């Protein structure tokens, strides 16, 4: 069995006085794609942000390959090989497509070359001088993922990459995540689209009220789809 890349124990987080995470425990093994599923507001994005060091005052423990990273500033955490594809894509409106693509520094060897990225997404080359936010939603999502792949991150935290996108684009993102998996990139995914999640993920964590309550296999998700969709409210 591959070794554990990311280990999170008893993670607790707050926004001012209000507690958002109540002791999250999860593991992600090297090369796995793992999904966090749950209703809006249960703490999925907060979990990703806590791992990335983007929220102050987080308690518990987070380890990357056994090394504690909780308390490090987020730029140091990123330099350990973690990349983030944020909610709503995070494309910068003051930067061109090319500038957005080149923004994250190369943090490790083995990142995708520009040639490979442009071969897969010719639009990012054709519209390199356009303002990043002028791209369509799907193209912006490709850009958000591509810039992290260029950086060489070995663990990618993806927050709802299919949100608001047409089915054809969702399929393209599915293929891209499968490509990443073949490259040995580990992914922790936040996703509400269960069909998409079962096609790309190895297993799923169900979150309720700031805690992981269940670990589900793909088969279990498919088998209990109706119940889970009702639970997610989608």
């Amino acid at each position, binding site marked *: 069995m591959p070794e554990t890349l990311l280990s999170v124990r008893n993670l607790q987080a707050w926004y001012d006085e209000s507690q958002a995470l109540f002791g999250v425990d999860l593991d992600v093994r090297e090369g796995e794609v793992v999904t966090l599923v749950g209703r809006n507001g249960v703490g999925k994005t907060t979990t990703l942000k806590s791992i*990335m*060091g*983007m929220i102050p005052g987080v308690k518990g423990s987070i380890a990357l390959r056994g090394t504690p990273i909780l308390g490090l*500033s*987020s*730029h140091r*955490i*990123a*330099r350990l090989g973690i*990349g*983030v594809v*944020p909610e709503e894509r*995070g494309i*910068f*409106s*003051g*930067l061109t497509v090319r*500038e957005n693509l*080149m*923004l*994250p*520094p190369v*943090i490790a060897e083995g990142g995708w070359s520009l040639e490979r990225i442009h071969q897969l997404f010719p639009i990012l080359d054709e519209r390199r001088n356009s303002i990043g936010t002028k791209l369509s939603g799907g193209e912006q999502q490709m850009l958000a993922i591509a810039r992290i792949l260029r*950086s060489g991150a070995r663990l990618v935290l993806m927050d709802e990459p299919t949100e608001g996108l047409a089915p054809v684009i969702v399929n393209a993102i599915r293929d891209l995540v499968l490509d990443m998996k073949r490259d040995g990139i580990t992914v922790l995914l936040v996703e509400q689209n269960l069909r998409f999640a079962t096609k790309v993920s190895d297993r799923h964590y169900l979150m309720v009220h700031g805690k992981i309550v269940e670990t589900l296999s793909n088969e279990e998700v498919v088998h209990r789809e109706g119940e889970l969709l009702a639970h997610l409210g989608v």
Partner: protein
Amino acid sequence: MLESLGGQIFNGLVSGAFYAMLSLGLAIIFGLLRIVNFAHGTMYMLGAFVAYVGAQSLGLNFWVALIASPIVVAIVGIILERLLLCRLYKLDVLYNLLLTFGITLFIEDAMRLKFGMQGSPYVIPGKLEGVVNLGFMIYPTYRVFVIVASLIVCIATWLLIEKTSLGATLRAATENPGLVRAFGINVPALITGVFGFGCALAAFAGVLAAPVNNVAPLMGDDIIIPTFAVVVIGGMGSILGSIVTGFVVGVVVALGAFFYPPISGTLIYILMAFVLLVKPTGLFGSVEGSR
């Protein structure tokens, strides 16, 4: 008449050169740090004093001062940012405005105690003495140099911010510092560097101003308020806005003084009020930029 009008336009360009360099530094600092740096005029004054003291005690010539003084003042700025300003980033912007105002009073009074109120002259460097024939009029060589040097510095800064990867990182950090940091970029170090760079720009302007005006502890006060007006007219945080508006305001005020001298002191504020009424984000500003 035409020659004196031309002279007045060039005088306006000289004032505009100082407005442009100072408002450029203010705009860069405001863009990334969201700090209205009241101490910017003090950095300008310190720049002039480093050149003056360097010349008096070390025999430092003007050309060396033009490089050394911005470096010294940038270091002062970096120390202030790391020691004081960074502690207030999470609070309302007014706290940093008050802090930088306090820093201004402290440094100005310290300089007044040491050097007195009376300004000291700084000699124009030998190669830039005399006048130059521009074809349509004769104008002091040093003043032409001020306009050209300021244009070069402003354009170089604009190119640095708009056309380089460092500039792209700066612009991104202005928009979403948390995400830029999550990409592995040390944003706090970037902020410190930008503050230091803004202070260096002010110091560069201060050295250029030293032979034009007397070097005096309150010289920053005379220019900082109109410079704030320039930043507001150009658009808070707009780099291009600061440069263009700096020169345009300099010329407009000079022309105002030429045609109707009583209005020269207030024209810049009338202009600011008019622009705010017509375009509240400033001529080159955006809602995002002024947020």
